[in-house]
């Protein structure tokens, strides 16, 4: 059984249909990359999987660990192990990263029937996970994302991923706004968190990120559907030729 199984997923915002029948199977241990032109539904797919109520699911299903997550509230999906690395992480003045993470870790533990971590256990965990993305010591005491640079925000997303240890992480354009060094740090972080029993979806525009995070599958999401699936070489092909040929191929097959 797949870890995540998306079948004929349709979703709209207002009257506008954005996802028009997405099918995707992801197994434990796999890294999938989703690519595609702007405005074709990549971020919407990520948002719908984790339960953003801005979008309405009109058809289809999303099965995660055998459970229909479309019936679960956002926080339960998260506690089940779905994590979204935000394209635009939200600034929350007045809430420190450590308060935020301690609350999140302990709420997830509670959901799973575990005792909350004590202060010292939590600090130890945080120190350990900070290494993964080379977070500077003082960042944890700052308010969540407030005044962070683009690179710090994305590092902070991966740090949170490390803290929460999700079964399935979806990284939405984690490479946007990163310089080369930050990109390497973020990608290394993701690689360090990769295990045979978890999986990752990497949404990106650029092949560059995939030099660091090598995907098992590359999908092209176009006009609300996954229109092509290949291995990492598909990303190289896209880098070289752009998306025009995909469009042509589609039009030809429709004739």
């Amino acid at each position, binding site marked *: 059984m797949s870890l995540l199984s998306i079948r004929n997923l349709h979703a709209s915002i207002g009257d506008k249909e954005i996802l028009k029948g997405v099918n995707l199977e992801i197994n434990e241990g796999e890294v999938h990359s989703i690519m595609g032109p702007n405005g074709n539904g990549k971020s919407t797919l990520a948002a719908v999987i*984790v*339960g*953003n*109520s801005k979008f309405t699911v009109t058809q289809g299903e999303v099965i995660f660990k055998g459970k229909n997550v479309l019936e679960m*509230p*956002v*926080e339960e999906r*998260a*506690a089940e192990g779905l*994590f*979204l690395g*935000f394209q635009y*992480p*939200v*600034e*929350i*003045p*007045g*809430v*420190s990263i*450590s*308060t*935020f*993470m*301690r*609350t*999140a870790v*302990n*709420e*997830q533990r*509670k*959901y799973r029937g575990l005792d909350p971590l004590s*202060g010292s256990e939590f600090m130890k965990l945080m120190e350990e996970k900070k290494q993964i993305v080379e977070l500077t010591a003082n960042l*944890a*005491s700052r*308010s969540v994302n407030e005044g962070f640079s683009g690179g710090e925000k994305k590092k902070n997303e991966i740090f*949170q991923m490390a803290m*929460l240890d999700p079964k399935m992480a979806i990284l939405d354009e984690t490479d946007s706004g990163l310089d080369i060094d930050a990109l390497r740090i973020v990608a290394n972080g993701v690689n360090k968190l990769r295990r045979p029993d978890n999986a990752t979806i990497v949404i990106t525009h650029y092949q560059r990120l995939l030099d660091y995070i090598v995907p098992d599958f590359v999908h092209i999401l176009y006009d609300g559907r996954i229109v092509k699936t290949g291995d990492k070489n598909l990303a190289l092909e896209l880098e070289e030729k752009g998306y025009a040929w995909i469009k042509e191929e589609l039009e030809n097959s429709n004739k």
Partner: protein
Amino acid sequence: MTTTDLILSHCDTATVQLPQSMASVQKEAADFLDANKFAFAKNEVWRNVDFSDFMNDELLVPQQNAPTPQTKFTCGIPNLDTTQLTIRNGFYQTDGEPLQKLGNGVVIGSLRTAIAQCPDLVAKVFGTTTPVNNSFLAANTAMFTDGVFIYIPDNANVAKPLQILGVADHEKSIFLQTRNLVYVGKNSSLTLIHCDDSYNHNRCFSNTVTEIVIDEYARLDHYKMQNLNDNSGLINQTFVRMRQNATLLSNGISFNGGNIRNHNEIRMDGEHCDVQVHGLYLMDKEQRIDNYVFVEHSHPNCNSYELFKGIMDDNAHGSFNGHVLVCDGASKTNAQQSNKNILLTDKATINSKPFLEIYNDDVKCSHGSSIGQLDEQALFYLMQRGIRPHTARTLLMFAFCDEVLKSVGIAPLQQQLREMVQRRLQGELSSCDNCVMSCPTDNCHFTIDVSAI
């Protein structure tokens, strides 16, 4: 007899007889009441305020000190040692001397006793901080029963904070008028914590006036905490007069109360004064809160900074009315005003009116106001990390309050206030642990690591 009738018919017979030097102030107050009564409809300063249900009610004015109860009232702040001054049902209460004259020249205790024993010191403050400009002030001036008197001489640093504890625990519905006077001498500094607590659920209407003089180069840190029952009404007027180079930090937190009016008037009589007035209010049910701040800049080179933040739930109603007056001579004034509100329901309301009145063109002034809801994007972000909606909302509300709480300069007090805010936001009736309203802290699903914020 209604409270209104009681005041208007008795205002010319003072409860506390003042010596000749101060009696004229009482006469002026009685005349003011005679002329103005309690007509506020056209008064911009009092327009939002409505205490009519208290003014039309028949309330008892306690006439003397009730016998000392077996239990001593405390409003403890863990890890903070304070000198406590208790006002119970309108009268100063102590086991010892009603007025203490300490070795370093500090005088603290009952105002009633101070008027008898050291009228010259009382006269340095009484009636000097404000003209009689409103009927509640006039009523208090004419008819106050007692209050706290604090006199800090020049060059004294009072290390231990003084704590005024206003207690209401009368078996009947009561009307109280207490008056507190505070003098901080030249180069001196004082931390004053003022708690107003209900110890039962009976109706209590309190018309309190506090007059404060901060002399040259002196500093006052004034913390006010209000935790009253839902049947209570509190008009809390504070008048401050500052001499040159004086500093005031005022921080008022309204946790609970049926109807609260915090009325602050601050006048700077010299250059280089520094004023910070902060307020936080957390209201729900049918509660009302009105915050009024008047700051008069009459001399050059003074700073004033106002920050008021509030969260309104259910049908709560509130107003912020801030007035900064920059007079012709007050060049190089730096004045800022900010009021931010979160409305949690469609029925909660707030009227926000920041107001600058400027007669000098060499000044830097700003004002701002915002009214909104909790940030949906931030809520989603928190919930995507597994935090349940109730906890996420509490966390965001707590974060909203943080800006005010972090300005509390005493660490143990800041800690206590954070915990009280946290409990209040979790929907518990907040209160100090010794008061009858206190509820056990359970079903607390997150602990805010306050050291890390």
